[in-house]
């Protein structure tokens, strides 16, 4: 095996360290391995509900989230499992969510990766209604601007979600209020079965930037270092008072909208082409082992660690307890903390009164 040549530090872009280069690899690998594990569990019918993949889009999620600090706030979508991992989400949390476990982050109320943590790790639980997270993140970052906190926010929208009124109202509000917000359009070519040409007549999504009076930057979404670079620039601009940036990351959705979708609407060979010639992990491995002189052995070791991590998380998640029916009545409001059981259920295992509302359940004071 060729002796790796020590690269000159200059050769590493965006001032990243070698450890960070490896970290980026690890996050992408973890994303893919974890999703593959979810597929296995899905086939074993251990996953409740649909399974959403980000295969081939890992660089968008990982590279962009990597440009944020812990205090910064991320608003992920269904293709951004990788972003959540970078932001501190634990594999076991993801697995428990997908398996609807009683100790999952949402206690079984919400599905898949619809969960968040605004107290410590700073990512916000998404809802299904596309576009809605943009106004919400405008408000999060408005707060930082009002309180002069050097924190920024990053929100993703898909190519399809750009057609929603909520996206428009949110980015316009953020722009005019000069909120420290990065809006990332993750353009993966499809909205469910709908190709981008049926979603907009614009040639590129950054053409929308000028209409909001904000800078627009387009980048190769399958080049994790490029994604990091452009996002980092936008994040720095936001942090220094430069307001909103619209980023467009070009990538490709290699799996169906969800696991059940057979992608009948995709031109033959298209998926295979991207898999063979434009896989974000393959491309990054090439650069790591080539240009940056990483020992392939090192990457293999990382792969093994990742697999071990996922194995362990899987065992933990499988051992997790299921949800308990009456818990469903807790925490709709801070006050009252629980809803009463309906009259005809009297004495039918309604143990609501026994439950305490955990202090963490969405009150400011803790």
């Amino acid at each position, binding site marked *: 095996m060729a002796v790796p040549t020590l690269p000159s530090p200059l050769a590493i872009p965006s001032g990243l360290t070698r450890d960070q280069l490896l970290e980026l690899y690890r996050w992408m690998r973890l994303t893919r391995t974890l999703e593959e594990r979810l597929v296995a569990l899905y086939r074993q019918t251990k996953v*409740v509900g649909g399974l959403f993949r980000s295969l081939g889009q890992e660089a968008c999620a990982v590279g962009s989230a990597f440009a944020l600090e812990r205090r910064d706030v991320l608003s992920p979508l269904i293709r951004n499992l990788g972003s959540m991992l970078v932001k501190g989400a634990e594999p076991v949390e993801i697995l428990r969510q997908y398996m609807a476990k009683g100790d999952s982050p949402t206690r079984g*109320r919400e599905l898949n990766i619809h969960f968040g943590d605004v107290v410590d790790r700073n990512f916000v639980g998404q809802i299904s209604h596309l576009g809605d997270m943009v106004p919400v993140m405008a408000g999060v970052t408005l707060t930082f601007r009002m309180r002069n906190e050097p924190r920024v926010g990053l929100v993703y929208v898909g190519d399809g979600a750009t*057609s929603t009124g909520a996206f428009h109202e949110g980015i316009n509000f953020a722009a005019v209020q000069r909120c420290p917000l990065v809006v990332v359009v993750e353009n993966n070519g499809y909205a469910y079965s709908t190709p981008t040409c*049926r979603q907009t007549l614009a040639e590129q999504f950054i053409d929308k930037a000028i209409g909001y009076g904000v800078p627009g930057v387009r980048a190769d979404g399958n080049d994790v270092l490029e994604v990091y670079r452009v996002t980092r620039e936008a994040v720095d601009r936001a942090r220094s008072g430069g307001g909103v940036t619209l980023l467009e990351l070009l990538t490709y959705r290699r799996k169906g909208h969800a696991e059940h979708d057979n992608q009948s609407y995709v031109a033959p060979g298209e998926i295979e082409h991207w898999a063979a010639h434009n896989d974000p992990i393959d491309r990054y491995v090439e650069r790591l082992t080539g240009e940056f002189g990483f020992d392939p052995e090192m990457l293999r070791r990382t792969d093994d660690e990742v697999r071990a991590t996922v194995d362990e998380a899987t065992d933990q998640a499988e051992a997790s307890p299921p949800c308990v029916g009456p818990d469903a009545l807790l925490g709709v409001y801070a006050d009252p903390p629980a809803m009463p*059981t309906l009259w005809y259920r009297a004495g039918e295992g309604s143990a609501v009164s026994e439950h305490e509302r955990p202090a963490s359940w969405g009150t400011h004071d803790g």
Partner: protein
Amino acid sequence: MAEITFLEAIREGLSEEMARDPSVFCLGEDIGGFGGAFKVTEGLQSRFGEQRVIDTPIAEAGIIGAAAGAAHYGMRPVVEMQFIDFVSCGYDMLTNYVATARYRAFLPCPIVVRGPSGGYVRGGPFHSQNPEAAFLHTPGLKIAYPATAEDAKGMIKAAIRDDDPVLFFEHKYLYRRIKGTMPEGDHVVPLGKARVAREGTHLSIVTYAATVWKALEAAEQLEREDGLSVEVIDLRTLLPLDDEAIVATVKKTNRVLVVHEDTVTGGIAGEITARINELCFEWLDAPVRRVAAHDVPLPYAPPLEDFVLPQTSDIVRASRWLAAY
């Protein structure tokens, strides 16, 4: 004739109306070549062409508004919400523009907004909703919510032919579980008329959509185990409500249980109770009682969803209480 599913019945109704009337066309997200998230419109685009089965951007307010505009100029658009939960994004357009069009400006607005609704499918809070009550106090709208495959076909055809806007709810739990044999010929089920799903004498269960089937299950169990004769009324149309049918069953059994899947507070059962109160209070031998979902957003984990939603056993318990009153 062969049995077809609830879902196929809707597709058959759509395609018969499109064949019958060139002004009927469909628009929605992924409804074209893909045939929609649940495949309700599968095959329609290849049969009627891209002009009449239109894949739209993700913009519920936009496509509902566009449907209204087309309707003003002689078309009869059928809009699909990928899940009915997303109709909330078109709430302003529906309640302010569409519903008032005829009244405020004499604008014809014969559109149908249809989509998969309802729970019992582990869909979580945003893919399981029953938003019908939110449109109940909007004069100008009609609300249809069939429970059988025969009605699904007959009512979608009636909705398309109606000269006013109709919200058409399709319970996704029924899509493939419920089958029926379609009557020969042009099978149209008029809006505004309820259906006696089961004759009975001791008490009445007034309900609609998926819980019609749970009510029937409960009725059988009550007959078997308690010798109770339970009448089940399937409302079918929620706006306008069929007061006659409601009053008839109350006068017959004098005991009413209203059952629905929506939350108990603010659900349609309140309106029905008020009408019974106004129209036949003297005939009541017991208070009208409600069996419905608990007042929480619908959670996703099976034990939670099962606990929140009304189950057959709940209807049985409530019926026993009512019969013994």
